[in-house]
């Protein structure tokens, strides 16, 4: 029972940053821009949050500066991709390379291997829901998480409403699905694409803050460890729909939780749990693609 509780808690815990990235990335996906810089933006969020927290001892300044830096990266990304029509994949890769390099550079010139905000007690970020906490399984699932977790679940529904019920969302989807239609309707494609990318970098910053700052108050370089790419895969699997994509994010979180918790019993082999979600995802992509191809009834064209 204790193990089950811990696995459920950890599943939510590991889902949070991926989920935030997924929701952030799917706006850009819907606007027709593949943002593989999620990873870099998340790392920037973690790094800046802890760096500012160490130096300023202010909780809110850390949040704000992390978001600001991530938004600047988003602006760079959108300027290069949307305005200058550069290759999005390469720009994303570049940002993913630059952020750890800058972080490493700063750490090296400070002469420390990683950053620790000692004055932070991660417990202050934990939210305990008064009644739910007492319920056996549900309690560990829903209560005692950092603020970012609750934000992430709230954001799923916000994203749904924003994408499907507002003018902004509809225009963004038009820009992504049919750029010609957008142009003929006089929709400012660049404006909507930029805005979609910026929403992504905002949420990535929150994910990064959650990962480094709310949980531990520690930053080590490359601590995002490919979560941004997992998020991209989840977006692809869910075809950019908020609820579906979030479900895939949760599958990843669950697999991670299993890997961590079962390593006590299974030893090294438990690390291999980590690769299950990747295979699940590739299988889903293949099945989805095969299914939609059958409906296309095209000639042999790839």
């Amino acid at each position: 029972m204790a193990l089950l509780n811990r696995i459920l808690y950890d599943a939510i815990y590991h889902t949070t940053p991926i989920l935030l990235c997924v929701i952030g990335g799917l706006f850009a996906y819907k606007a027709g821009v593949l943002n593989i810089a999620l990873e870099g933006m998340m790392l920037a969020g973690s790094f800046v949050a802890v760096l500012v927290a160490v130096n300023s001892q202010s909780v809110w300044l850390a949040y704000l500066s992390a978001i600001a830096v991530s938004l600047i990266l988003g602006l760079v990304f959108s300027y290069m991709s949307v305005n200058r029509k550069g290759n999005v994949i390469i720009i994303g890769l570049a940002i993913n390379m630059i952020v750890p390099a800058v972080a490493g550079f700063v750490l090296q010139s400070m002469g420390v291997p990683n950053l620790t905000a000692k004055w932070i007690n991660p417990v202050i970020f934990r939210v305990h829901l008064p009644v739910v906490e007492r319920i056996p399984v549900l309690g560990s699932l829903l209560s005692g998480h950092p603020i970012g977790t609750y934000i992430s679940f709230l954001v799923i529904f916000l994203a749904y409403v924003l994408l499907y019920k507002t003018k902004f969302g509809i225009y963004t989807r038009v820009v992504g699905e049919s750029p010609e239609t957008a142009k003929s309707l006089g929709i400012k494609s660049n404006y909507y694409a930029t805005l979609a990318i910026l929403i992504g970098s905002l949420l990535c910053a929150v994910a990064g803050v959650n990962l480094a700052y709310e949980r531990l108050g520690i930053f080590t370089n490359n601590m995002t460890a490919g979560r941004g790419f997992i998020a991209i895969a989840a977006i692809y699997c869910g075809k950019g729909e908020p609820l579906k994509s979030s479900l895939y994010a949760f599958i990843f979180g669950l697999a991670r939780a299993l890997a961590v918790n079962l390593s006590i019993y299974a030893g090294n082999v438990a690390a291999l749990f980590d690769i299950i979600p990747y295979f699940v995802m590739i299988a889903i992509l293949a099945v989805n693609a095969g299914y939609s191809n059958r409906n296309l009834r095209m000639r042999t064209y790839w």
Partner: protein
Amino acid sequence: MKRIKWKNLANSVLPVFFALLIGAVIMLAMGHNPLNAYRIMFERPLFTLRGLTNTLHIAGPLLLAGLAIAVTFRSNLYNMGVEGQLIFGGFLAGLAGAYLHIPNPFLHKFVCLVVGIIAGMMFVLIPAILRAFLRVDEMVVTLTLNYVMMTVLEYLSSGPFRNQGAGYVSTNTIDKTAMFNRIGKTRLTPFFIIAFLVFLLFFFMHKRMVFGYRGEAVGKNPEFAEATGLRVRRHIVQVMIISGALAGLAGAGHMMSHEFNYTLSFSGTPGIGWDGMLISLLGGHSPAGVLIAAVFYSALKTGSDNINMYTGIPKEIVAIIQGLIVLFLSIRFINDRFGLTKRWRNKRNMKGTVHGTFE
């Protein structure tokens, strides 16, 4: 024709220039002399015999990784899994080197290289088949498979194949018969010659043979290629397999000429596969360009150690410069037709027409 070539060159040189410029600004802000730092960084790896041979030695796997990416890019495919295929090739070549005791040194080396190549080819088969027959985006699949491979190898090298005598996670060191020895007093090994021969093969394939042309045809317009009777599916699988083979060879060579056992930092950070991406971009995806870019990049890589040793500037400055190069490479500084004049002309024309806003 010549004009276009000149512009391609400018589009590769200008990003490097701007990246170095920004790097210089950062160094100035920290109170270091950037010119001095750049002199230290490039002088030794390019203008001393020992440094130059070392640079070429490091450039071998980089050249192959760059070609692995270039060959897919030309057909408009994205094999982002070069890193995964490379470490898999290196790992299996390492096992073959350590566990197969073949007394004949030539045969042993040959077997190891073949094992590496086959490993790379097998691993790329998953995304290649999914792409060709089910139209699954190969970029996402290759990206995710990198992490799968990293996790699996981490498990294998720290579990079943761990060298118990070593104080850190590593596999057994490969046999002497599987190691490429240095040529004379230089750091060059015969592996560089192999890499160079592969490069020559590609150079001629790209220029003189049908395969290179077909690749470009598929890359530029797949519908047209299909309509003229090219077998696009088969071509996709072929290109991906070649890419995987090159990556596997690069990994095997890196193992047998430089690392000699598999550790968790086998391909370094950001990893030879990712370096190959930069090299291919920098070289404009042409074989000759890839060669020049690989040597330049290798100089940058070996020079970063010097910069740390002699100036006190953290060597991550080089990583920042690398990232900036990639960032600037993503856009074309100079269009095929001069961007500035074209825009100006468009503006002037638009004034005269009623529907000017619709371009």
